[in-house]
Protein backbone atom coordinates (compact mmCIF):
# COMPACT_ATOMS: atom_id res chain seq x y z
CA UNK A 1 0.00 0.00 0.00
CA UNK A 2 1.45 3.32 -0.99
CA UNK A 3 2.07 5.65 1.91
CA UNK A 4 -0.15 8.70 1.94
CA UNK A 5 0.43 11.66 4.20
CA UNK A 6 -3.04 11.83 5.67
CA UNK A 7 -2.14 14.63 8.07
CA UNK A 8 -1.81 16.96 5.10
CA UNK A 9 -5.14 15.93 3.69
CA UNK A 10 -7.11 15.87 6.93
CA UNK A 11 -8.14 19.44 6.33
CA UNK A 12 -9.55 18.57 2.94
CA UNK A 13 -13.22 17.69 3.06
CA UNK A 14 -14.35 14.34 1.77
CA UNK A 15 -16.31 16.05 -1.01
CA UNK A 16 -13.15 17.74 -2.21
CA UNK A 17 -11.23 14.48 -2.02
CA UNK A 18 -13.85 12.72 -4.11
CA UNK A 19 -13.89 15.55 -6.64
CA UNK A 20 -10.10 15.53 -6.89
CA UNK A 21 -10.03 11.75 -7.19
CA UNK A 22 -12.50 11.98 -10.05
CA UNK A 23 -10.26 14.51 -11.75
CA UNK A 24 -7.37 12.09 -11.68
CA UNK A 25 -5.72 13.03 -8.39
CA UNK A 26 -4.40 9.65 -7.32
CA UNK A 27 -3.27 10.93 -3.93
CA UNK A 28 -6.83 11.97 -3.12
CA UNK A 29 -8.07 8.54 -4.17
CA UNK A 30 -5.50 6.81 -1.98
CA UNK A 31 -6.49 8.91 1.03
CA UNK A 32 -10.12 7.87 0.59
CA UNK A 33 -9.10 4.29 -0.02
CA UNK A 34 -6.88 4.06 3.05
CA UNK A 35 -9.55 5.53 5.26
CA UNK A 36 -12.31 3.16 4.23
CA UNK A 37 -10.72 0.05 2.74
CA UNK A 38 -10.90 -2.13 5.85
CA UNK A 39 -14.46 -1.23 6.77
CA UNK A 40 -15.84 -1.73 3.26
CA UNK A 41 -13.97 -4.98 2.78
CA UNK A 42 -15.01 -6.41 6.12
CA UNK A 43 -18.62 -5.46 5.54
CA UNK A 44 -18.59 -7.13 2.12
CA UNK A 45 -16.81 -10.18 3.51
CA UNK A 46 -19.17 -10.60 6.44
CA UNK A 47 -22.17 -10.24 4.19
CA UNK A 48 -20.93 -12.66 1.56
CA UNK A 49 -18.40 -14.79 3.47
CA UNK A 50 -16.51 -14.99 0.23
CA UNK A 51 -13.09 -13.46 -0.33
CA UNK A 52 -13.66 -13.28 -4.07
CA UNK A 53 -17.01 -11.54 -3.70
CA UNK A 54 -15.65 -9.14 -1.08
CA UNK A 55 -12.72 -8.22 -3.34
CA UNK A 56 -14.96 -7.70 -6.36
CA UNK A 57 -17.43 -5.63 -4.36
CA UNK A 58 -14.66 -3.53 -2.91
CA UNK A 59 -13.14 -2.82 -6.32
CA UNK A 60 -16.50 -1.94 -7.87
CA UNK A 61 -17.38 0.15 -4.86
CA UNK A 62 -14.33 2.40 -5.06
CA UNK A 63 -14.49 2.67 -8.84
CA UNK A 64 -18.19 3.54 -8.64
CA UNK A 65 -17.23 6.34 -6.29
CA UNK A 66 -15.02 7.99 -8.90
CA UNK A 67 -17.25 7.44 -11.87
CA UNK A 68 -20.71 7.35 -10.32
CA UNK A 69 -23.18 9.94 -9.07
CA UNK A 70 -21.87 12.96 -7.21
CA UNK A 71 -21.19 12.52 -3.52
CA UNK A 72 -22.81 15.18 -1.36
CA UNK A 73 -21.34 15.76 2.11
CA UNK A 74 -24.62 17.21 3.30
CA UNK A 75 -26.47 13.94 2.78
CA UNK A 76 -24.24 11.79 4.96
CA UNK A 77 -20.68 10.70 5.44
CA UNK A 78 -18.53 9.21 2.73
CA UNK A 79 -18.38 6.01 4.76
CA UNK A 80 -22.16 5.67 4.65
CA UNK A 81 -22.11 6.47 0.95
CA UNK A 82 -19.55 3.73 0.28
CA UNK A 83 -21.49 1.24 2.38
CA UNK A 84 -24.60 2.11 0.40
CA UNK A 85 -22.79 1.31 -2.85
CA UNK A 86 -21.35 -1.90 -1.39
CA UNK A 87 -24.77 -2.93 -0.15
CA UNK A 88 -26.34 -2.43 -3.56
CA UNK A 89 -23.58 -4.43 -5.20
CA UNK A 90 -23.97 -7.20 -2.65
CA UNK A 91 -27.72 -7.29 -3.00
CA UNK A 92 -27.38 -7.54 -6.74
CA UNK A 93 -25.15 -10.56 -6.20
CA UNK A 94 -27.02 -12.15 -3.33
CA UNK A 95 -30.60 -11.48 -4.34
CA UNK A 96 -32.78 -14.53 -4.27
CA UNK A 97 -36.40 -14.71 -3.31
CA UNK A 98 -35.66 -17.02 -0.39
CA UNK A 99 -32.98 -14.83 1.07
CA UNK A 100 -35.13 -11.76 0.85
CA UNK A 101 -37.54 -13.34 3.31
CA UNK A 102 -37.64 -11.64 6.68
CA UNK A 103 -38.41 -14.69 8.79
CA UNK A 104 -35.35 -16.69 9.83
CA UNK A 105 -36.89 -19.47 11.88
CA UNK A 106 -36.69 -22.19 9.23
CA UNK A 107 -33.10 -21.38 8.39
CA UNK A 108 -32.04 -21.48 12.02
CA UNK A 109 -33.09 -25.08 12.34
CA UNK A 110 -30.37 -26.15 9.92
CA UNK A 111 -27.56 -25.38 12.37
CA UNK A 112 -26.80 -28.03 14.91
CA UNK A 113 -24.74 -26.02 17.33
CA UNK A 114 -24.52 -28.71 19.98
CA UNK A 115 -23.35 -31.24 17.47
CA UNK A 116 -20.64 -29.02 16.14
CA UNK A 117 -19.39 -27.60 19.39
CA UNK A 118 -16.61 -30.12 19.67
CA UNK A 119 -15.27 -29.69 16.17
CA UNK A 120 -15.87 -26.14 15.08
CA UNK A 121 -14.34 -22.93 16.28
CA UNK A 122 -16.58 -20.62 18.21
CA UNK A 123 -15.98 -17.83 15.73
CA UNK A 124 -16.96 -20.11 12.89
CA UNK A 125 -20.21 -20.94 14.62
CA UNK A 126 -20.92 -17.26 15.12
CA UNK A 127 -20.17 -16.65 11.46
CA UNK A 128 -22.50 -19.39 10.40
CA UNK A 129 -25.25 -18.17 12.68
CA UNK A 130 -24.99 -14.67 11.22
CA UNK A 131 -24.86 -16.12 7.74
CA UNK A 132 -28.13 -17.90 8.34
CA UNK A 133 -29.92 -14.63 9.01
CA UNK A 134 -31.99 -13.15 6.17
CA UNK A 135 -29.97 -10.48 4.32
CA UNK A 136 -31.86 -7.50 5.74
CA UNK A 137 -31.32 -8.68 9.31
CA UNK A 138 -27.78 -9.73 8.58
CA UNK A 139 -26.77 -6.35 7.22
CA UNK A 140 -28.42 -4.64 10.19
CA UNK A 141 -26.52 -6.76 12.72
CA UNK A 142 -23.23 -6.46 10.80
CA UNK A 143 -23.47 -2.68 10.50
CA UNK A 144 -24.56 -2.25 14.11
CA UNK A 145 -22.25 -4.73 15.83
CA UNK A 146 -19.14 -4.80 13.69
CA UNK A 147 -19.15 -1.38 12.04
CA UNK A 148 -20.56 0.25 15.18
CA UNK A 149 -22.94 2.43 13.23
CA UNK A 150 -25.87 4.25 14.75
CA UNK A 151 -29.45 3.39 13.90
CA UNK A 152 -29.69 6.62 11.89
CA UNK A 153 -26.62 5.74 9.84
CA UNK A 154 -27.89 2.22 9.19
CA UNK A 155 -31.29 3.58 8.17
CA UNK A 156 -29.56 5.88 5.70
CA UNK A 157 -27.52 3.07 4.19
CA UNK A 158 -30.31 0.53 3.89
CA UNK A 159 -32.84 3.20 2.88
CA UNK A 160 -35.35 2.29 5.54
CA UNK A 161 -36.79 4.12 8.51
CA UNK A 162 -35.29 3.74 11.95
CA UNK A 163 -38.24 1.70 13.18
CA UNK A 164 -37.65 -0.90 10.51
CA UNK A 165 -33.95 -1.07 11.35
CA UNK A 166 -34.75 -1.50 15.05
CA UNK A 167 -37.17 -4.25 14.23
CA UNK A 168 -34.64 -6.07 12.05
CA UNK A 169 -32.00 -5.78 14.73
CA UNK A 170 -34.33 -7.08 17.41
CA UNK A 171 -35.34 -10.09 15.34
CA UNK A 172 -31.73 -10.76 14.36
CA UNK A 173 -30.64 -10.72 17.98
CA UNK A 174 -33.50 -12.97 19.03
CA UNK A 175 -32.55 -15.44 16.33
CA UNK A 176 -28.87 -15.31 17.26
CA UNK A 177 -29.69 -15.76 20.94
CA UNK A 178 -31.69 -18.85 20.07
CA UNK A 179 -29.05 -20.27 17.72
CA UNK A 180 -26.06 -19.50 19.86
CA UNK A 181 -27.66 -20.30 23.20
CA UNK A 182 -25.27 -23.23 23.88
CA UNK A 183 -22.27 -21.01 23.25
CA UNK A 184 -23.70 -18.26 25.41
CA UNK A 185 -24.30 -20.74 28.20
CA UNK A 186 -20.80 -22.09 27.75
CA UNK A 187 -19.44 -18.56 28.00
CA UNK A 188 -21.29 -17.82 31.21
CA UNK A 189 -20.16 -21.15 32.71
CA UNK A 190 -16.58 -20.30 31.83
CA UNK A 191 -16.83 -17.04 33.68
CA UNK A 192 -18.26 -18.68 36.78
CA UNK A 193 -15.55 -21.31 36.94
Amino acid at each position, binding site marked *: *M*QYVDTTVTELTTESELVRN*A*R*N*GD*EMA*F*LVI*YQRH*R*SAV*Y*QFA*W*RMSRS*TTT*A*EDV*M*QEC*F*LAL*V*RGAAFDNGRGTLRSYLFGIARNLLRRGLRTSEREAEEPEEAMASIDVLGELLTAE*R*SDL*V*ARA*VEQLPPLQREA*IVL*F*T*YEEMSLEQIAGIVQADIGAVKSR*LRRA*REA*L*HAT*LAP*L*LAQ*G*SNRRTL
Partner: protein
Amino acid sequence: MNEHDPLDNLLREWNSPEPTDELDRRITSAYRTTVRPPIWRRFWRTRISIPAPALVSAALVVLALFLWLRPHFGVSVATPSAPGPAAVQPETRVTLADFQPVQQLEPHIMKEGK
Protein backbone atom coordinates in the same frame (compact mmCIF):
# COMPACT_ATOMS: atom_id res chain seq x y z
CA MET B 1 -30.30 -2.19 22.61
CA ASN B 2 -29.17 -4.19 25.61
CA GLU B 3 -25.96 -2.64 26.92
CA HIS B 4 -24.47 -5.75 28.55
CA ASP B 5 -25.78 -8.52 26.39
CA PRO B 6 -23.24 -11.38 26.30
CA LEU B 7 -24.28 -11.91 22.71
CA ASP B 8 -22.24 -8.83 21.76
CA ASN B 9 -19.05 -10.32 23.16
CA LEU B 10 -19.73 -13.57 21.43
CA LEU B 11 -20.42 -11.88 18.09
CA ARG B 12 -17.14 -10.00 18.33
CA GLU B 13 -15.25 -13.27 18.40
CA TRP B 14 -15.94 -13.46 14.69
CA ASN B 15 -13.06 -11.57 13.13
CA SER B 16 -12.86 -10.74 9.49
CA PRO B 17 -9.70 -10.62 7.38
CA GLU B 18 -8.05 -7.44 6.13
CA PRO B 19 -7.81 -6.70 2.42
CA THR B 20 -4.56 -7.98 0.94
CA ASP B 21 -1.76 -5.93 -0.61
CA GLU B 22 -2.54 -7.66 -3.87
CA LEU B 23 -6.08 -6.28 -3.75
CA ASP B 24 -4.72 -2.81 -2.95
CA ARG B 25 -2.53 -2.95 -6.04
CA ARG B 26 -5.40 -4.24 -8.16
CA ILE B 27 -7.72 -1.43 -7.11
CA THR B 28 -5.07 1.26 -7.53
CA SER B 29 -4.32 -0.05 -10.99
CA ALA B 30 -8.02 -0.14 -11.86
CA TYR B 31 -8.37 3.44 -10.65
CA ARG B 32 -5.50 4.58 -12.90
CA THR B 33 -7.14 2.91 -15.86
CA THR B 34 -10.56 4.36 -15.05
CA VAL B 35 -9.56 7.91 -14.26
CA ARG B 36 -6.66 8.78 -16.48
CA PRO B 37 -6.34 12.52 -17.06
CA PRO B 38 -5.18 13.79 -20.46
CA ILE B 39 -1.45 14.10 -20.95
CA TRP B 40 -1.50 17.91 -21.01
CA ARG B 41 -3.23 18.02 -17.63
CA ARG B 42 -0.78 15.55 -16.21
CA PHE B 43 2.07 17.72 -17.51
CA TRP B 44 0.77 20.86 -15.81
CA ARG B 45 0.20 18.99 -12.58
CA THR B 46 3.53 17.23 -12.54
CA ARG B 47 5.49 18.01 -9.41
CA ILE B 48 9.11 17.36 -8.73
CA SER B 49 10.80 17.55 -5.39
CA ILE B 50 14.30 18.93 -5.25
CA PRO B 51 16.56 19.19 -2.20
CA ALA B 52 17.07 22.77 -1.03
CA PRO B 53 20.91 22.67 -1.44
CA ALA B 54 20.49 21.56 -5.04
CA LEU B 55 17.99 24.36 -5.66
CA VAL B 56 20.35 26.96 -4.13
CA SER B 57 23.28 25.62 -6.17
CA ALA B 58 21.24 25.82 -9.37
CA ALA B 59 20.17 29.37 -8.53
CA LEU B 60 23.82 30.38 -7.90
CA VAL B 61 24.91 28.87 -11.22
CA VAL B 62 22.20 30.81 -13.05
CA LEU B 63 23.21 34.01 -11.26
CA ALA B 64 26.91 33.47 -12.06
CA LEU B 65 26.12 32.86 -15.73
CA PHE B 66 24.05 36.01 -15.83
CA LEU B 67 26.79 38.11 -14.27
CA TRP B 68 29.43 36.57 -16.54
CA LEU B 69 27.47 37.13 -19.73
CA ARG B 70 26.17 40.62 -18.91
CA PRO B 71 29.36 42.58 -19.90
CA HIS B 72 29.41 40.92 -23.35
CA PHE B 73 25.87 42.10 -24.01
CA GLY B 74 26.64 45.48 -22.47
CA VAL B 75 29.47 46.24 -25.01
CA SER B 76 27.28 45.88 -28.04
CA VAL B 77 24.50 47.93 -26.51
CA ALA B 78 26.65 50.65 -24.97
CA THR B 79 28.87 51.32 -28.06
CA PRO B 80 28.21 54.89 -29.14
CA SER B 81 27.33 55.07 -32.82
CA ALA B 82 28.44 57.95 -35.03
CA PRO B 83 25.69 60.34 -36.11
CA GLY B 84 24.62 59.49 -39.65
CA PRO B 85 21.56 59.38 -41.86
CA ALA B 86 20.02 56.66 -39.69
CA ALA B 87 20.18 58.86 -36.64
CA VAL B 88 18.08 61.62 -38.26
CA GLN B 89 14.56 61.62 -36.94
CA PRO B 90 11.94 61.38 -39.72
CA GLU B 91 9.87 64.48 -40.11
CA THR B 92 6.10 64.29 -40.31
CA ARG B 93 4.62 66.56 -42.95
CA VAL B 94 0.90 66.99 -43.57
CA THR B 95 -0.48 68.67 -46.71
CA LEU B 96 -4.01 69.54 -47.81
CA ALA B 97 -3.97 66.55 -50.18
CA ASP B 98 -4.03 64.30 -47.11
CA PHE B 99 -7.49 65.53 -46.21
CA GLN B 100 -10.12 63.59 -48.20
CA PRO B 101 -13.93 63.66 -47.87
CA VAL B 102 -15.52 60.80 -45.92
CA GLN B 103 -16.78 58.02 -48.22
CA GLN B 104 -19.50 56.64 -45.95
CA LEU B 105 -20.83 58.54 -43.03
CA GLU B 106 -21.82 56.39 -40.04
CA PRO B 107 -22.96 58.66 -37.25
CA HIS B 108 -23.08 57.06 -33.76
CA ILE B 109 -25.50 58.64 -31.34
CA MET B 110 -24.13 58.60 -27.83
CA LYS B 111 -26.51 58.95 -24.96
CA GLU B 112 -25.80 61.36 -22.21
CA GLY B 113 -23.63 59.97 -19.51
CA LYS B 114 -22.17 57.18 -21.69
